[in-house]
Each structure stands twice: as structure tokens, then as C-alpha cells.
């Protein structure tokens, strides 16, 4: 039979492991919070620029909106409605289809490699 001391030591080790996992989770949550805040700010800036830039010309606003979306996509974020604002790994069919749809007002723009 295991001694109580050994059982307590095992339990201590398990608690340490659990504490470590909680810390990891806390870090991940913090990173996500920060990323979320940054994205919100970026989005807010985009809208502010879009509306403050001109009130008269719809075309220019749409064009700016497209450039901003392109910028977000280029920074490896999804811009499709499925995962808008989430980090992407590789190209996304849905983001590109969305960009293609929006492309007409900003024809001639290029997407950088990514």
C-alpha cells in the first residue's frame, strides 16, 4: 500500500500540473483579448477613415473599404463572414471570393503574396 506521504506528493504534482494548465489558459485568454482589442481598434479606424474621409463620394468610400479589407487580408486575417478577424493560415477560398466580388470598384489592386 502506498504511504500517505507518497499519495500527498503525487497529488501535489498533479495540482502543480493543473496550475500550469490554468496559467497556460490564462495566457491564451490574454493573448486573445489583446488580439481582439487590436482588431476592434483596427476596424473602428477603418470605419472612421471611410466615413470621415468624404461624405459625398460613395465610390471613394467603397474603394477605401476595399483597400482596408485587402490590408486586413494581407496581414493574414480572414475577411470572410465565416471567420472575420481571425488569424488565417494560407489563402481562404471564401475570403478570395469575397474580395473578387468587391474588386470591381478597385480594379487594378494587387494582393501581396502571403
Amino acid at each position, binding site marked *: 500500500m502506498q504511504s500517505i506521504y507518497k499519495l500527498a506528493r503525487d497529488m501535489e504534482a498533479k495540482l502543480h500540473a493543473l496550475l500550469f494548465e490554468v496559467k497556460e489558459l490564462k495566457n491564451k485568454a490574454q493573448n486573445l483579448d489583446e488580439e481582439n482589442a487590436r482588431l476592434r481598434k483596427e476596424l473602428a479606424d477603418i470605419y472612421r477613415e471611410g466615413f470621415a474621409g468624404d461624405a459625398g463620394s460613395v465610390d471613394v468610400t467603397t474603394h477605401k473599404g476595399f483597400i482596408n479589407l485587402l490590408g486586413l487580408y494581407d496581414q493574414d486575417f480572414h475577411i470572410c463572414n*465565416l471567420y472575420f478577424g481571425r488569424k488565417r493560415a494560407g489563402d481562404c*477560398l471564401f475570403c478570395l471570393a469575397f474580395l*473578387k466580388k468587391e474588386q470591381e470598384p478597385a480594379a487594378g489592386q494587387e*494582393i501581396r*503574396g502571403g
Partner: protein
Amino acid sequence: MKFTCIKEEILNALLVVQRAVPSKNPLPILTGIKFKAEGDKVFLTATDLEIGIRCSFPAEVIEDGESVIPAKLIIELIRSLPDLPVFIESDPFTNSVEIKYGQSKAKINGYPADEFPDFVLTSGDLHFNMPGDVLAEALRQVIFATAADENRPVFTGVLLEIEESCIHLVATDTHRLAWRKILMETSLGSNIKFIIPGKTLNELVKIIGPEQKVDLTFTENQVLFNTDNTLVISRLIGGEFPKYKMVVPGECISKIRINTSELQDATKRAALLTNEGAPIVKMQITDDTLIVTSHTEAGHVHEELKTSRDGEQLQFAFNARYLNDILKVIGSEESYIEFTGPLSPGIIKPVSDVEYISLLLPVRLRGD
């Protein structure tokens, strides 16, 4: 429970149901296979609570009953037996089973059968059937495009969408998309959508025999596939599948027709000389030739394949593994590859009557 059976028959049934036995599970009883002897058959059941498989085999049942036996032990034991009739008898008081073969015997300790989770088969809202080979081929053509990332459950499944007499099977991991249509003889309804886990379908295609007919039954959150002696039940994935039709490009600017296996072989060879983790092969459409190349520090490959071209001359790059996944299942001697623009997905489809397309995004290279 007491029965005698043929070794091959019990082994085949065990190998079918073991696909649902979880490798890791907090519930030890799920690492077991439930035996139920009834009438002239023995029913084997395994489940990981996401997917459940039940398979029956003929046996001379002496006494009805149930027992749960650890999957790994019973499979390895039966596999290693000589080709003799197998006699199995369970002891409900100790939850053990005795396996007798010739003059020898073995005893395996099991689990209480009444603790094994039962299949709950609710009555189906939608029911139809189709030939096993048609279903298996169609599923193979789309399953490879499902995502492995469990954080995005919708993409780990295959969409089954019904529009009158047409069944659409669609899978995408957002980098590629596979879409197969199956035409049925009668209308099954309209605007009906289910997302079936890719894992379930992966197991199903390995189970379905070519000559079998498969009955499909859908409830609100479960799907049931039933063949002659096997039944597969699985939960459905909740959520909205993305509007896949919007990613299919329109008019193409260039189209080639090429021998499928030649392209597959050339891509495989070119992929040998690519960087691990990023098997990118370059392709160039010239007059009547498709040039497949790869170039790394280790060396380079240059392959020229005869094609017939319609449209512009183009240069592009594909992930060789993704391209091969498609070519493996396209099921046609020749294939079409269509392009609508440098950033649009390539459309790969068979030169046949089968309504199948696969979309694959070209890889953007530095300087593109």
C-alpha cells in the same frame, strides 16, 4: 450467452466494429465490444459515443445473452486462432467469457453488459437508399477536402444537401473544396441540409461493400447507414455550412485537358524535390504542353506533359499533396483544369458524365 461460429466470420465482424472503438476514452467500458447472441445471429456493437457500429454474423446460438469483451484482446485472440470452429460462453456473474477452440481454451475478463451505452434509434425524418458503390465513390471524392481542425466543426464534416432529386455532397477546409452531385430517380424534398462528420464517412466507405445497397435515415441530429449486416449511426454536426456556391468561379480564361494518371505521376515526382511541409510544384501551360517543375537546394525536376489547351498561356503553382488528393479520386482517365484568374481557384473536373468539381487555390509565390 453461448454460441459456436466460424473464425473468419467473427473476425470479419470484429474488424468492422472495432473502427468505432475509441483509442482513448475516460469510460473503460467503451474499449470493449458488446456481444449479443439472439436467434441465429450474434450482434457486435462498438461506440465512442460519436459514432456507433453494429455488425452481425451467423452463429449457432445455444443460449441467448450479452457480454462486453475488451476489443483489443478479443480481436488479437480470434485473429491468432487456428481455422477451427470457435465456441464462446459468457459467465454473467463474473462478466468473463471463455473461448474454446479445438482442445484449447482461453478466458477473458469483460465488463457488465448492462453498462454498455445503447444505440438510441429515433424514428427517421428522411429516408432513402442508394447503391453502395455509388455512395462510396461519391464520398471518397469529397471526404479528403474536410478539415482536421476541431475548432471549426462545420468544416470537419461533409454537407449533404438535397434539392429535389439531386443530392449535393460538399466538403471544404477553406483552402480547397470538393463538390459532387448525385442524381436520384425521385424527388427527396428541397432545401434539406445535413452535415455528417468526415470521420464517420471515412469509416463508412471502408465498410460498404460494392454490391450492397445502403439505406440512409436522417433524424434531427443523427444519421443512420444500414447495409445487409452492418449499421452505422453517427451524430450530425450542428451549424451552418458556408455558401459554397459563391466560391465557384465563373467563366474561365484558360482550360486544359490532360491525362489524369500522367499528371498525378509527374506531380508526385516533382513533389519529391520540394521543401518538407510545403510541397509546392510550379506548372506552366504553353502551346500544347503542361510543364511541371520543382526546384530546391536538393535539385530540380522538369516534366513535360501533352495537353490540349483552350485559352491563355498561364503559369501557376499548386500544393502537390492537395492536387494529388483530387487526382486520386477524380475517377476519370482524363481531367480538365480550368483557370479564371491568377488569384482564383483552379477548377479540376473529370472528362466524364459524373458531375464533380474540385476547387484548389493556387499557391502565390513571391513576386506574383
